[in-house]
């Protein structure tokens, strides 16, 4: 390791200052890529970097901030060419004294599920830069990052493709948020879990603003912290961007930054060799301020962290197919929307973390796990618990997961320890440890404690700290052994006290086989929390359980002023169940768009009527009535959608009933729907989907930005005769034409189209068989088509 890096954390290390702003002064124009100057004007780059070296910078960053294959496309230059030239220039400027940092910034694209870049795409863009520049560099510096998932791709690409130390710094706004909304804690927790050498913040703010955010950042991590601020917040003067903080003021503020316990200080946009020279003069040789950082058990999502050991953590258990026929059916049909709905419901009900288990023998679990993680992270902000016994599914999930995940689980079996612990270490996860081994689940608390001890020991051999282990002493059914709950809780208490690790229990199992299960479950949960339980894997939709939890928190000092308790109960003093659905028919409930009532009335109707009779007798007539109103202009879009939501709920109850009996609803016809390639607007397509489903059609929803070949494959594989395509932008209509052409050439599939930019003539011109001006039009067409 370069001697300067060995100083990091002990003695001040000086980073260099701005590059892009200096290049603009030297004539770089607005639309030009600064990195191409490594090839066209290397002497300018070297002059700037030599000036930084002469000013006393210990670390020089290569002029490669924006280099990647996407940005270089069309320039006629390769990543290798630009990066290796940049490293050579920095090496020359370093002159044997300075360390050279291979610089990598954001890709410029947004990651899925919000944008179009997949995790592996981002990973490969960074990998190419690392492979081109690692030789000749002393460290990799990932900087100005605003998205935790992209940050993770960059760090993994660096760590997996070279042996250099990795330093990563993020850009926050004045409220301490990343551009994608992540908190300081979320970003730093992720970086620390991935095993970076040092971390911190750069760009976006001046040192004065960073000073306000730094105490929070320094509390999150024990690693060396790097701060590279801009020369203040930019102002526009006569059409030019000016950074107002001069060298003297910058240096004075940086001294304050350093005094907080920061290890590395330099500059970013607007800073110059003069800024760095003063900084170096004042800080070089000074010892880094020691600081105390509390040890925490923490997991994160892309936006925030959840800490164990304070208020008990609620892990929502419902995304798990065991004993849930409707979820099984959804997984088999690749219906991820169902999964997302379950996720959002639990988040709304108060879950802190969501368990995600998609294991079914007949599906490709690694692929499903990856999709489920991506989709869920688009709709909920909560950290996820990756629940699988398949190491391949576990690794896929750990890779694409946006944050520091929780893994469920490892156990005392050799096979499990050997498969799971290396993954936990590599991806910096926290892990649930089950106290069972080759001999099964010990009957005594002592036996379970011994296994916990063994797992902790094994984990420590892999370098996994105790703080990242949550022991589960396993809840057994109390109706099959009166000591069962007692043994679990005794083991729990010992593990907490003697091993000093946090604990977790799946509580629902305790009441299996008993009447009024929720009473026993909720009371057991209270007892466990009282004995020091850190997290429960629970049904947060159970009122009894949440009643117990909120009461416990209020009584145990976890709910200051009983605020949460009051917020939950003040408005619903009387628990009397309303029976609003009584005087209404299902038809009326749907026409009026009353979802809960529609669900309850469907359940009641299913007692006596056949599902098909309910659909034909109430659902469709109601939707027809609303649809006619919409076509006449007396019913508006939100009302149409409220009715669609109510009908969807009715359908959901029917599906649930059928799934419980092992049946499936027989569809009127199968339709493939997609928003065409390049288009990311799917609101119109989604409305069409809901309506078609409500009318009893099976919809194979391919989502948005769908390639023509993908549509063709879905049509072929499912023997589909009708496809619906949507496009909102003029730029994506050619992709629609291409898809239609492919389908017509290769199949006898009929193609209906819709979308804001289309009209009758345009649709005909691109070869569509049918144009619909709105969602109801597509339903009418499908009804005729399949009649």
């Amino acid at each position: 390791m370069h001697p300067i890096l060995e100083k990091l954390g002990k003695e001040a290390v000086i980073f260099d200052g701005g590059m892009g702003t200096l290049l603009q002064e030297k004539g770089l124009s607005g639309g030009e890529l600064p990195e191409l100057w490594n090839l066209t004007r290397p002497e300018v780059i070297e002059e700037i970097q030599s000036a930084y070296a002469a000013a006393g910078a210990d670390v020089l960053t290569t002029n490669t901030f924006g280099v990647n294959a996407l940005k270089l496309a069309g320039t006629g230059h390769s990543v290798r060419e630009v990066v290796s030239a940049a490293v050579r220039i920095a090496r020359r400027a370093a002159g044997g004294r300075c360390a050279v940092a291979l610089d990598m910034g954001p890709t410029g694209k947004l990651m899925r599920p919000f944008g179009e870049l997949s995790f592996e795409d981002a990973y490969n863009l960074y990998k190419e830069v690392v492979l081109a520049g690692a030789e000749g560099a002393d460290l990799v510096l990932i900087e100005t990052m605003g998205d935790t998932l992209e940050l993770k791709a960059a760090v993994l690409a660096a760590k997996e493709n070279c042996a250099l130390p990795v330093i990563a710094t993020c850009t926050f706004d004045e409220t301490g948020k990343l551009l994608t909304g992540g908190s300081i804690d979320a970003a730093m927790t992720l970086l620390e879990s991935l095993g970076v050498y040092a971390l911190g913040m750069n760009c976006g703010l001046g040192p004065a603003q960073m000073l306000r955010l730094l105490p929070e950042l320094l509390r999150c991590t024990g690693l060396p912290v790097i701060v590279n601020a801009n020369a203040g917040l930019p102002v526009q003067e006569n059409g030019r961007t000016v950074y107002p903080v001069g060298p003297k003021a910058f240096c004075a503020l940086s001294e304050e930054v350093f005094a907080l316990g920061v290890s590395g200080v330099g500059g970013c946009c607007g800073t110059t060799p003069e800024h760095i020279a003063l900084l170096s003069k004042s800080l070089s040789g000074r010892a880094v301020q020691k600081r105390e950082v509390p040890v925490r058990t923490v997991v994160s999502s892309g936006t925030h962290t959840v800490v164990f050991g304070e208020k008990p953590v609620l892990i929502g258990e419902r995304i798990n197919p065991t004993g849930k026929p409707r979820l099984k059916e959804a997984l088999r049909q690749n219906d991820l929307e169902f999964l997302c709905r379950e996720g959002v419901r639990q988040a709304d009900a108060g879950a802190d973390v969501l368990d995600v288990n998609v294991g079914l023998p007949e599906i490709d679990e690694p692929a499903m796990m990856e999709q489920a993680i991506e989709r869920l992270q688009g709709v909920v902000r909560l950290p996820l618990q990756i629940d699988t016994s398949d190491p391949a599914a576990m690794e896929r999930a750990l890779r694409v997961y946006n944050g520091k995940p929780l893994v469920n689980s490892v156990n005392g079996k050799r096979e499990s320890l050997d498969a799971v612990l290396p993954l936990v270490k590599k991806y910096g996860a926290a892990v649930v440890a089950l106290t069972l081994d080759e001999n099964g689940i010990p009957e005594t608390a002592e036996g379970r404690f011994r296994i916990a001890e063994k797992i902790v020991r094994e984990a420590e051999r892999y370098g996994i700290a105790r703080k990242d282990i949550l022991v589960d002493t396993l809840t057994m059914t109390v109706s099959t052994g009166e000591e069962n709950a007692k043994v679990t809780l005794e083991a729990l208490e010992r593990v907490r006290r003697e091993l000093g690790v946090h604990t977790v229990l799946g509580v629902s199992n305790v009441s299996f086989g008993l009447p009024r299960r929720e009473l026993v479950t909720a009371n057991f949960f209270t007892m466990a929390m009282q004995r020091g339980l850190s997290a429960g894997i629970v049904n947060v939709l159970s009122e009894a359980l949440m009643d117990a939890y909120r009461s416990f928190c209020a009584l145990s000092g976890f709910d200051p002023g009983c605020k949460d308790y009051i917020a939950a109960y003040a408005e619903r003093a009387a628990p009397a169940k309303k029976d609003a659905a009584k005087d209404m028919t299902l038809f009326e409930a749907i026409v009026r768009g009353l979802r809960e009532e529609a669900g309850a009335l469907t359940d009641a109707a299913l007692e006596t009527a056949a599902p098909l009779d309910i659909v034909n007798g109430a659902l469709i007539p109601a939707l027809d009535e609303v649809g006619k109103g919409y076509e006449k202009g007396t019913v508006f879009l939100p009302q149409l959608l409220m009715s669609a939501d109510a009908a969807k709920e009715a359908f959901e109850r029917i599906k649930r009933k059928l799934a419980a009996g092992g049946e499936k609803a027989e569809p009127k016809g199968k339709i493939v729907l997609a928003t065409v390639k390049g288009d990311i607007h799917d609101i119109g397509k989604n409305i069409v989907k809901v309506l078609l489903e409500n009318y009893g059609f099976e919809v194979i929803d391919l989502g948005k930005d769908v390639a023509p070949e993908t549509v063709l494959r879905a049509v072929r594989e499912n023997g589909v005769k009708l496809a619906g395509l949507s496009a909102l932008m003029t730029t994506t209509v050619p992709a629609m034409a291409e898809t239609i052409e492919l389908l017509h050439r290769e199949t006898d599939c009929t193609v209906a189209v819709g979308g804001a930019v289309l009209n009758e003539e345009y649709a005909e011109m691109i070869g569509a068989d049918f144009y619909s001006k709105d969602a109801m039009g597509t339903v009418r067409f499908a009804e005729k088509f399949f009649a």
Partner: protein
Amino acid sequence: MTLNEREALRYLGFRNAAPDERTAALVRELGKAFLSALAPKHIYRKYEIEVTENAVLLDGWRIESADLARNLAGCGAAYLFAATLGLEADRRIRTETAKSEARGAAAHAVCNALIESYIDEVHGALDRAERAAGAFTRPRFSPGYGDVPLSAQREIFARLRPEKTIGVTLTDSLLMVPVKSVTAFIGVTRDPARAAKRFGEGDE
């Protein structure tokens, strides 16, 4: 940024009709939640421009467009401007859509109204600054309007670099994500008769 409920309802199809109570309540509920959760951001830079009959020259970039040239006629300078509600808006729209289609559609409409209000505010501030110097701003003009192709986005992005500063990115098909984002030209004129009368979009 404030919520113009009328505007949100207009996006939901209520042009002159009064909304039903539930839709109105939903728009109000989401508006309140989004206003406190979203952190809109913007960036702009001012350039000297040359305008001919069919083209505009800005920072070495020649934009062939009669419509933009008409909008910027008589202007010696123009702002390139980008603004966004941020990724949290996308996230919230998805969450609401997972709850129900009606909530999803309302979330879209509320966000559309919010970003309009936000850019009107920023445009208003630019206009005040220009007026202090004896000039006026023109109505905004965005890529995709008239004969300005969406490919103009690439040139705007190369100059403003909104990926880095406000987190707005461009897809290969030239759409912006986060989805509730706007880019625009805002002309600066000395002619009071050409000043924007309100800070809406379009060419009056």
